[in-house]
């Protein structure tokens, strides 16, 4: 495998299903040994992209290489180098835990002498030591996901694709799962992961923000938070929340506003200047106002801001 080139390279990748464009002209590169995150809501094209990279779907146009191998031309060669964990739980529920591991060890042609050690390693990693004899169907979701990860990396692939590995998993299990991902990356594995949890995105080395099949932003979490906001962020505590939001969204100085928890996050050009103005505005309309202060944006703010801009420009296009 070529250690110098990028681990995953995607150029102008497009995938259409009939009239529907699931992935729209996407380009990016993932480096060796990094956690590369794909962040976006359901239906944004995350799973489709990952499936193309695993050779499970043929791209409509564009090019993608994994470990230097073209996925459309030579999907079988790609499969030697990857581990894949699909969104839906896809182990055999009617097999025991160890039987699933043995089966996938066979499918990945793990050398016979290494199999016991690899299975022992996977059981330990999944926290299923001594439970190899258990029925897979009886495991809780968190354990199932870790077992699925174990099955996908039995052959020590240099690149691992995880499609929403933590959806439906409780917070403690999610944490444990991310610790596993970090330890794999520590061994030099490239982990390509999709998620719609914003907090998980913070764990990634680099991120792609995807919306309706298009890349809306790309970079490290810090870069995204510092470069991709169209202004500064104000956190506004006020009541009642709904009417206040409506009012702020129509105010000319407010670029964008959205409800976050018990307050409103508003994007403005100059936070220091706008804070007192907004307080006046609220009080003039009989709203109760609490703290109004500038805060550092979270990834969620970035995401909402970016997708809102795109949605608005789309509406304008439609109107014109």
């Amino acid at each position, binding site marked *: 495998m070529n250690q110098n080139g990028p681990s995953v390279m995607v150029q102008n990748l497009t995938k259409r*299903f009939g009239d529907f464009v699931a992935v729209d002209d996407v380009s990016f590169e993932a480096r060796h040994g990094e956690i590369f995150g794909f962040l976006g809501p359901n239906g944004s094209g995350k799973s489709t992209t990952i499936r193309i990279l695993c050779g499970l*779907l043929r791209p409509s146009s564009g090019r993608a290489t994994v470990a230097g191998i073209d996925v459309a031309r030579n999907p079988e060669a790609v499969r030697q180098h990857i581990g*894949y964990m699909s969104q839906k739980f896809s*182990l*055999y529920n009617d*097999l025991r835990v160890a039987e699933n591991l*043995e089966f996938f060890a*066979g*499918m990945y042609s793990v050398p016979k002498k290494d199999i016991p050690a690899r299975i022992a390693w996977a059981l330990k990693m999944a926290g299923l030591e001594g439970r190899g004899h258990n029925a897979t169907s009886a495991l809780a979701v968190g354990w199932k996901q870790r077992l699925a990860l174990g099955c996908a990396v039995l052959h020590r692939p240099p690149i691992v694709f995880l499609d929403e590995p933590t959806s439906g998993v409780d917070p403690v299990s999610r944490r444990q799962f991310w610790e596993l991902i970090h330890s794999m990356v520590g061994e030099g594995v490239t982990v390509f992961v999709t998620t719609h949890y914003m907090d998980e995105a913070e764990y990634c080395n680099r991120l792609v923000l995807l919306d309706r099949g298009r890349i809306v932003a790309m970079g490290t979490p810090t870069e995204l938070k510092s470069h991709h906001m169209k202004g500064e962020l104000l956190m506004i505590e006020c009541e009642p929340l709904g009417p206040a939001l409506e009012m702020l969204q129509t105010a000319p100085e407010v670029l964008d506003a959205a409800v976050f928890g018990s307050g409103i996050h508003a994007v403005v050009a100059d936070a220091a200047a706008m804070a007192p103005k907004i307080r006046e505005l609220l009080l003039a309309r009989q709203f109760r106002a609490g703290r109004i202060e500038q805060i550092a944006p979270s990834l969620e703010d970035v995401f909402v801001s970016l997708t809102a801009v795109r949605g608005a420009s789309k509406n304008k296009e439609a109107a014109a």
Partner: protein
Amino acid sequence: MSWTRIVAMTRKEVLQIGRDPRSLLIILVIPLVQLFIFGYAVNLDVKHVPLCIYDRDGTQASQDFLKHFQATDYFNIVRVSDSYSDVVRNIDHGVCSVAVVVPSQFAEDLHSSGQASVQAILDASDSNSATIGMGYAQAIVQSYSSEIQVAWQEERGLGAGAPNITFEPRTWFNEDLESMADLVPGVVAMVMAVVGAFLTSLTIAREWERGTMEQLISTPVGKLEIQIGKLFPYFVIGIADTAICSGTAVLWFGVPFRGSWVVLFGCSMLFLLVVLSLGYFISVTAKSQLGACQMALLATFLPTFLLSGFIFPIDQMPVVVQWITAVLPARYYVSILRNVFLKGTEVRLLAGDIMALAAIAVVLVVLATRSFKKRLA
């Protein structure tokens, strides 16, 4: 091709079959149930036809005549009627399917003119039984007729010289014309077709339905490795079912076995290759278990039952239907089995059937392999 991947695949299938009560039921119970249903319930031999007699003559001669119906296995006299309306009622109510009426002038006509007739009434709502019943009745009348002819001639001292031809049929291969012996080869074919195609029709569809296929095709396993690994256990099961069915037929039902076991199992393996590939192809195409197993039954059970010559002789079918049977693997297999069981035919005489079966096997194996794609959508 990797041997370890094939072994791992086979091992997984065996574990899954062993834990699926549905599969076990199909493998073990269906063959025996089918064999016993066809062995006992489906009896194509017509014997003990329920008969009603109405003697309007009431003479020594008429009683003598009717005794001939009593003396045979073919009829059971269930009613002795005393009026036409009673005869009609018995036919209507299905009490009897054949009625024989001796007219009132029977003895007198016979004596005076040497000519007498009797009437037979047949319930042809089951036309097959009616035709057979009519044949039996005719034979009995004929034999009685020649009997009294001979007696008449002897009375006049003409006895020995009278020309006479007797017909002595000898049926070969199935000496007693037992339908069981004829049916068993067909039942074996049917069991193999249904079990083979039905079980394999689920293997790929199940993986798609449960979402395990996506994981499986993301591994380096080759599609030929999947196919061989998945079909091998069903191949062994099919051979075992052949042995169970043939063994039961010979040991329990006393069907003769005159051919070679090597030919039987060799041809059965070829037929299994056909039905397993068919099931696999259906499974790949259908992607849902329900659709796949319905298609598998439709593709195997009906044609095997109706068109293989198992029950309905192919040379009696309309020409177009006969052409259709040419592509039906069960037709060749049934023909081979009949020959192996009843005739003990040499292999070279079966070459035509074996070649046809092999050709179909090649087509289906290629079709099954080609149809499977290691891709989603």
